């Protein structure tokens, strides 16, 4: 049920398998406080999955960010994680203060979900709080022994900072905090840093770093790079995207991101670049 830790759902091609809703909005909101903890967990996921932007759903999910009843053996907060993930999809900035508080939760996955969702909500006022998680640089962004994750959700934080910090008073500090991560030992962290650095500086060297990532030996990381290039709309990557060793659907969605940045709805004439992108996309259908 929870999404892949590598890619936020908005960046992924639609699932090949359709999923049918099985709750009503009222039922899902009511289930967020059901005595059965598994129903609460499911309801929080469901409200995000089906993008229920009803203000009552948002209010109930914000309350669920403080939940203390649902705990894992390791002290995690499953309901808080799902509530934080869902709030990122509901486009309601009332969730920002609660998500910022989640950035200091002792559950790594709550911090990760909160960072991802803050990046999606588009409210740059949380950037200083996000940057605190990058303090300590490379040394602090290392794996936790015995756990499958780093000390901080560095990729999620870097991605959110890349989306939010450009052209804000925190831009220079963001660049300073993100740049060292280009040399992280994990390639997925390097790529996240390259994506954010491109968004922060618009320098081709960082877009080209993502193009190189299209040749990563790990197909999952090639997919991440496709999604990153689509998200930042890096035009010089078009041919490399079309010929990358990955499924056509990932390449199609990546090129869509490039095309969207070449389209101005009020201008009827398509640019040469837009026509070339269309031809590449047609070949991937």
């Amino acid at each position, binding site marked *: 049920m929870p999404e892949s830790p590598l890619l936020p759902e908005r960046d992924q091609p639609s699932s090949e398998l359709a999923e049918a809703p099985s709750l009503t909005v009222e039922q899902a909101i009511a289930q967020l406080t059901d005595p059965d903890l598994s129903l609460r967990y499911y309801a929080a996921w469901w409200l995000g999955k089906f993008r229920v932007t009803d203000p009552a759903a948002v209010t109930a999910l914000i309350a669920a960010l403080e939940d203390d009843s649902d705990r894992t053996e390791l002290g995690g907060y499953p309901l808080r994680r799902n509530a934080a993930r869902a709030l990122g999809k509901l486009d309601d900035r009332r969730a920002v203060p609660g998500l910022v508080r989640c950035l200091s939760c002792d559950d790594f996955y709550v911090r990760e979900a909160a960072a991802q969702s803050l990046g999606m909500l588009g409210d740059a006022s949380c950037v200083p709080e996000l940057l605190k998680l990058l303090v300590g640089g490379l040394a602090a962004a290392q794996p936790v022994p015995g756990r499958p994750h780093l000390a901080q959700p560095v990729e999620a934080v870097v991605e959110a900072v890349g989306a939010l910090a450009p052209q804000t008073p925190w831009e220079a500090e963001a660049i300073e905090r993100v740049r060292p991560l280009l040399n992280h030992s994990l390639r997925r962290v390097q790529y996240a840093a390259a994506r954010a650095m491109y968004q922060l500086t618009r320098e081709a060297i960082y877009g080209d770093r993502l193009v190189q990532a299209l040749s990563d030996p790990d197909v999952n990381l090639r997919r991440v790079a496709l999604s990153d290039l689509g998200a930042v709309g890096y035009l010089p990557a078009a041919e490399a995207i079309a010929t990358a060793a990955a499924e*056509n659907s990932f390449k199609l969605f990546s090129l869509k991101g490039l095309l969207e940045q070449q389209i101005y709805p009020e201008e009827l004439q398509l640019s040469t670049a*837009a026509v070339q992108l269309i031809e590449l996309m047609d070949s991937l259908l």
Partner: protein
Amino acid sequence: MIVTHSAASPSPTPEALIAAVEQADSPERLLAAVQRLAASPSEVSIPTLIRVLGYNNAGAASLAMQGLVQLGAAAVAPLLDQLDDYNYGARAWAIRALVAIRDPRALEVLLSAAAADFAPSVRRAATKGLGTLLWQQLPDHQRWQAQARTLETLLTIAQDSDWSLRYAAIVGLQGLALALAPSRECNRIQQQLQQMTTDTDRAVLARARYALTVVGAAPETA
């Protein structure tokens, strides 16, 4: 043993090339063997090439598809007979091969795959392909009926909630409009494309504008 002999011989027999594919025991060997087989495909290699579409190896499947496309009409009946109902990856490659061959015997399969396959990748490939079938291979009375059914299917897909299917529908409609022009049906397609130039999705909107220029009608301001 067969492999050793074929490697020494300047032009290995189709049977040797097939055996090399079937005996490949690593993704790299499979890729190399499929490459050799697809480079000089013969009719006896068709069943093997079709099986490779289902190996979940995109590189090998893409090469096998190209081999099948080279064989053209001869590959159509086996592709239609052996369409894999249980593996959508294999099905998407088989549909792409049929789309590239453009033989109108694939019409029924493409219509149902475009309208109702559960995998968007299969639907997109079929939807695009419906626009470029070699209609002139059908006798007149069948051709008009086939084109009319294709038009209705594409117009329905043009309303799909998935942007990638609306996009593919435009590609299909563009091809069909070129085959039908000038006619009342062609005008209907142009109207539909014109409507789609105000799609909420910018990639779809752009594709509709481009299609209008290809079919010879300038997009109008909304």
